[in-house]
């Protein structure tokens, strides 16, 4: 096999780069390897530190999802220490998590998907001119509005959290803030303005309430053509155009999903425990594999290092997890090829099935029968993938669908905050304990495991959504979820395989992808390019 180049990540980031190696035979991807080219050592940094160090350090893992990191790091400590969290604090934490996602998604759509949609390869599509008019970087009409207004949701985050990004205002036992009535009214006004101008104005072309009446794929298709305003919305246009350019035909992956769920019900999680978490979630956790649903149990999560540059092989639960890096040169001799560990879930009766995380996973869980009154039940996305399949288009539509649902949740929590009640209960700080905290970042399941001994961190493991999705083959040689999603993708022009960018971007991963394409018959390198042209 041809020698790989390692990329040097731009200074100031710790996410590192992702090399995607694909084999193309007769114009179709036949195999794929994802290689994370940088070592991430947060677990090693945190060992031996004060238990609260995770609140400061993990939000710095990412310049995009810092609020999500804070949310789950805080619950890891809440469960380890057995804190009491007043309902107000949970509302504010939920607001922090949700406003960050409300911001992230339109930025993703216009700044990441937008340029792909206007790629020259699609110039022959009937709606190409219209796509360029809307989505061309900087000059596109929708691009301008979507990106310019994307800042508004995190202004609400900053009202409660002091600043966005990298705030540490969520603490065990609650939140560090004392909002006033004007903070609440200002937050309502900001979100309403954003919804009026972008979400309802440009994206949906109708009210959030009307849009959320959609329960099936047929409902959705009918909605797209119900009137001129909806027909001309960015959402309906994207759906038509995506089908013109074939985004509904590839990028499937396994169709098996995992969600750790998020948004704790404020009244039902005042004494956070690991065991009580699933029942208290509003956006549910769960596993969907081989057509069956399973309850999420964090004890069934392991990280496989067979193909990762860490000593040994096999799988460990994150509480027992070891981060023992080895020289990649040595690792390659043992068949290892990446710095990413391979998170796996032991599905009852099925074993370690690779599972995709992200908006599709969350929305498939939303269709699971048996939702409690406080839990989200929504059959739309599950029906969409039953009718239209799992592919680039439906992965994007699932992500965008959540914007309307999340806007409603955000408004609800704002309205429920009781300014006369507590936002914090001072916790006891036991000198030992084990904790688990999780959330759903915009990109998918995000969780921390902490072990505290003698008042210090004895072990800390973070599993990010990108790790679930871009992880390598496991010990049974099953491809990782994103590796699998590349297989079967058509590549029309090997010199600029925009289709591969579309697959990678549909996962909205945290790594900058460099794709190396090889001819399946000769092994000759066909192309190497960095998605996004940097």
């Amino acid at each position, binding site marked *: 096999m041809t020698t790989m180049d390692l990329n040097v990540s731009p200074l100031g980031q*710790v996410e590192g780069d992702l090399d995607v190696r694909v084999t193309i035979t007769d114009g179709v991807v036949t195999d794929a390897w994802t290689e994370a080219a940088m070592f991430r050592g947060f677990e090693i*940094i945190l060992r031996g530190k004060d238990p609260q160090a995770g609140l400061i350090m993990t939000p710095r*893992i*990412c310049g995009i999802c810092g609020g999500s990191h804070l949310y789950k790091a805080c619950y890891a400590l809440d469960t380890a220490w057995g804190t009491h969290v007043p309902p107000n604090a949970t509302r504010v934490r939920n607001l922090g998590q949700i406003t960050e996602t409300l911001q992230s998604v339109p930025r993703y759509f216009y700044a990441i998907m937008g340029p792909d949609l206007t790629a020259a390869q699609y110039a022959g599509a009937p709606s190409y001119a219209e796509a360029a008019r809307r989505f061309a970087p*900087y000059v596109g009409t929708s691009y301008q509005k979507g990106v310019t207004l994307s800042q508004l949701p995190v202004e609400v985050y900053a009202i409660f959290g002091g600043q966005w990004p990298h705030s540490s205002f969520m603490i065990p036992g609650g939140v560090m803030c004392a909002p006033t009535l004007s903070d609440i009214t200002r937050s309502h006004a900001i979100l309403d*303005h954003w919804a009026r101008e972008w979400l309802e104005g440009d994206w949906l072309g109708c009210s959030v309430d009307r849009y959320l009446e959609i329960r099936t794929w047929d409902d959705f298709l009918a909605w797209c053509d119900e009137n001129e305003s909806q027909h001309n919305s960015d959402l309906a246009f994207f759906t038509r155009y995506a089908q013109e350019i074939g985004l509904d035909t590839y990028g499937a992956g396994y169709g098996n999903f995992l969600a750790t769920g998020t948004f704790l019900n404020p009244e039902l999680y005042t004494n956070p425990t690991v065991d009580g978490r699933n029942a208290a979630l509003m956006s549910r956790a769960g596993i969907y594999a081989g057509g069956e649903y399973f309850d999420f149990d964090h004890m069934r999560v392991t990280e496989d290092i067979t193909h990762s540059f860490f000593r040994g092989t096999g799988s460990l639960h994150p509480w027992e997890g070891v981060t023992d890096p080895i020289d990649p040169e040595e690792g390659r001799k043992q068949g290892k090829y990446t710095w990413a560990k391979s998170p796996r879930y032991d599905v009852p009766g099925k074993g370690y099935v690779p599972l995709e995380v992200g908006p599709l996973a969350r929305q498939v869980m939303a269709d699971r029968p048996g939702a409690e009154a406080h839990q989200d039940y929504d059959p739309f996305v599950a029906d969409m993938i039953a009718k239209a399949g799992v592919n680039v288009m439906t992965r994007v539509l699932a992500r965008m669908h959540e914007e309307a649902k999340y806007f409603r949740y955000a408004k609800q929590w704002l309205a429920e905050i009781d300014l006369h009640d507590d936002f914090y209960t001072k916790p006891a700080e036991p000198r030992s304990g084990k904790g688990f905290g999780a959330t759903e970042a915009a990109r998918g399941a995000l969780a921390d495991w902490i072990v505290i001994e003698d008042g210090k961190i004895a072990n800390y493991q973070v599993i990010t959504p990108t790790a679930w999705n871009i992880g390598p083959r496991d010990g049974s040689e099953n491809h990782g979820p994103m590796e699998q999603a590349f297989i079967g993708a058509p590549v029309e022009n090997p010199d600029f395989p925009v289709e591969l960018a579309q697959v990678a971007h549909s996962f909205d991963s945290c790594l*900058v992808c460099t794709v190396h394409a090889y001819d399946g018959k000769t092994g000759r390198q066909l192309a190497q390019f960095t998605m996004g*042209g*940097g």
Partner: protein
Amino acid sequence: MLAPPATETLVVGCGNLLRGDDAVGPVLIRLLADRDLPAGVRLVDGGTAGMDVAFAMRGVPRVILVDASAVGVEPGTVHRVPGEHLVDLTPPEGNLHRFRWDQALGFAQWLLKDDYPDEITVWLVEGGSFEIGAPLSEPVQAAVARVADAIVAEVGAGAASRG
């Protein structure tokens, strides 16, 4: 109602606290937070959220950006550069995780139009080590204190001259 409160000078410290000397921007913001600064000076820990640097600058007449550099000179060397020399006009594409403040300046010219700052100054502190989890190296520790003093002198003078 939606506009941020009036800010005369915005100081943004960029970089990652987890990467040795790359933490110089956020560390500087903490040093400045303990100093007596004139009203109208706002401090922002920009961290690694590049695009948000652009949003933070809206309507602010004067912006001071601080970041680490790795140009290959002696660690702790400080450069003070007018912002217009560092603007990167490449549009943000591919992955927002790689968005840097030099791109943010180019992005901000598009985003903010007439609200783009009149004056942008960039302080760059040359790093020695960017090892994950390491504290600031000694020369950078010394340099960040010097930069803090220089910025206090600058914003103090600015407030006085405007009366």
